[in-house]
């Protein structure tokens, strides 16, 4: 008898494994950032890399984001494939010029002659009381600016495949991992943050959404940790006879508009769940995509459940009031179904 056991990893280990395998394959890949060496990354995305590859390829940096992210841009132009970690996405304010005026624009400005294969990794998301400067998601802000691919995984399996694709991509990629999907021992336990990850390297195409749960009654379009919340809600809804389809976008740039339209053509109802701010962001873009591509298929106006347009409050009851949750998702779905 052969017993097949699945290899389980946390998302943080899946990411560091993907990086390690690419570093073994390609000597041009190296990693820079604050506390990514000895510490292994504050969120574990580079754990074990220093011991394996040494300080020449796993470089702890000063607190100088403009300098080291700019250095990643320069090194990429000169033939390397750097990965630079911005510890919290909220810190983008101190280095955004290098990101959006340089990393994102040089390929275009050069008329396609200069490639900038940088991966910027960064932690996103709140829900654990870290206040207004350490809890934002901000993927909508980055996605608004042309020239960068924006990858936002939700599972260990996707995280590894998308990381390998990001490193091999000839374009700048901003790879945004939610702290709540990493499977960290010091965060609130999340069973969905551990999952099957094959040992061998594999890629997942950037720009392809993934149906995480099939359903006929409504489509929940979401991303990152909210995929987990939507799956929890879908399980509750199924007990009431509502079958929700959960579409995980996995990347915002490119946005898989075809997958969004195809799902809504099937279910005729759309709920967008977004941990990013309400206005001018992902939820508006997804709804517009459906209005443009599947308007005649809609049985009800689209609904969005998002973070209100306020800075993230610290106090627990205030933060929980603002955050989408599985209960709020289920309630919004029932409302959309007229229940």
């Amino acid at each position, binding site marked *: 008898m052969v017993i097949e056991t699945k290899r389980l990893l946390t998302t943080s280990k899946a990411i560091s494994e993907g990086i390690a395998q690419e570093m073994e394959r390609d000597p041009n890949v190296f990693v820079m950032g604050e506390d990514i060496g000895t510490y292994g990354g504050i969120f574990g995305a580079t754990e074990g890399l220093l011991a394996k590859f040494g300080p020449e390829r796993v470089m702890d940096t000063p607190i100088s984001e403009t300098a080291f992210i700019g250095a990643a841009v320069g090194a990429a132009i000169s033939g390397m494939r750097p990965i630079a970690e911005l510890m919290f996405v909220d810190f983008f304010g*101190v280095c955004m010029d290098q990101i959006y005026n340089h990393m994102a624009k040089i390929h275009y400005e050069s008329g396609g002659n200069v490639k900038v294969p940088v991966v910027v990794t960064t932690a996103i998301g709140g829900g654990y009381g870290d206040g207004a400067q*350490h809890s934002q998601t901000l993927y909508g802000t980055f996605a608004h600016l042309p020239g960068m691919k924006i990858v936002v995984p939700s599972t260990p399996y996707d995280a590894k495949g998308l990381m390998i694709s990001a490193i091999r991509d000839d374009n700048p990629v901003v790879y945004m991992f939610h702290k709540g999907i990493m499977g960290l021992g010091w965060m609130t336990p999340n069973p969905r943050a551990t999952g099957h990850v094959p040992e061998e390297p594999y890629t997942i195409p950037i720009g392809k959404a993934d149906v995480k749960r099939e359903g006929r009654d409504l489509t929940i379009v979401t991303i990152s940790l909210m995929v987990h919340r939507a799956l929890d809600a879908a399980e509750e809804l199924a007990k009431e006879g509502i079958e929700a389809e959960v579409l995980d976008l996995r990347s915002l740039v490119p946005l898989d508009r075809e997958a969004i339209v195809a799902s809504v053509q099937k279910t005729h109802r759309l709920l967008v769940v977004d941990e990013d701010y309400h206005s001018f962001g992902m939820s508006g873009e997804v709804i517009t995509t459906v209005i443009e591509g599947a308007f005649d298929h809609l049985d009800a106006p689209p609904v969005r459940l998002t973070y209100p347009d306020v800075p993230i409050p*610290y106090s627990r009851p205030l933060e929980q009031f603002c955050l989408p949750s599985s209960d709020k998702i289920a309630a919004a779905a029932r409302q959309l179904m007229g229940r």
Partner: protein
Amino acid sequence: MPDNKTLRDMHYQLVRIRLFEETIQKVYFEGKTPAFDIAAGTVPGEMHLAAGQEPVAVGVAAHLRPSDAVTATHRPHHIALAHGMDMKRLAAEIFGKETGLGHGKGGHMHLFDPATNFGCSGIIAEGMPTAVGHALAFRKQGKDDIAVSFFGEGAANQGAFHESLNLAAVWQLGVVFVCEDNAWAISVPKDKATAIANNSDRAAAYGIPGVLVPDNDPVAIYEAAGEAVSRARRGGGPSLIEVKTDRLFGHFEGDAQAYRTPEELALLQERDAIRAFERRLIESADLTAKDAQDAWDRARTEVDDAIDFARSSPYPEPSAALQHVFA
């Protein structure tokens, strides 16, 4: 040399701040054991405590008035308390309560207090430019108030450090820049991150005085700050002070500190600046042993009262999250 009253006041400040930080540490782990969950317990989120760094705050703040502006970092409690922030409202903010300084909206890294003109930021070095602005406003208003910006040695490699020093120097503003060098930027040691040994030397690049205080001594800090503060107050422009201080706890609570040796951690406890200062005051007869014990007892009561106030205060209404985005 500070007079006897000042020495005794500084001793009490050091003691109450140390007890506050130790007590917040205990409170922080309520509801987080046996399994640590950063989101759980009485106080969620990251918690950066300043035990060991009290002398820097106390030595500088002894020269300040409440109308002087102070900007601090993600590790702000010692500076806030030394500058006169109400301990109860600070504790309540840390607990996320309605009675907190920001009604629970800010949290421990985002404390704002008009009564003491205090602000802080969770983004490294980003309190420095606002200090320049406070000093600019005071000059435009014809006041002799000054601004003091506290930051860590890790911040001295950020653009905002260099831009702020240059701007304050070129406009000759009354800013005292105080670098708390605790040798560690989370896990990255200063010598792996900073090209020179002493950030105070960087003052030369901006044509302003730079002073190094080589140990964590409240009196030495007091002396260095006194000169810088009076220079700023009389319109003599900015100064940079660097103090070699100690971070007795982790970067944040729950930090296993695998990057530090047990010997280093033991040495830090051994050379605890508050106990050393207290011994010296007793030896010099500035303080009796009984006075010292009385200070610890009095501080215990003050801290316990503040924690009780925070604990018994109500949470804000959840929907209050939507208020205060705009004036």
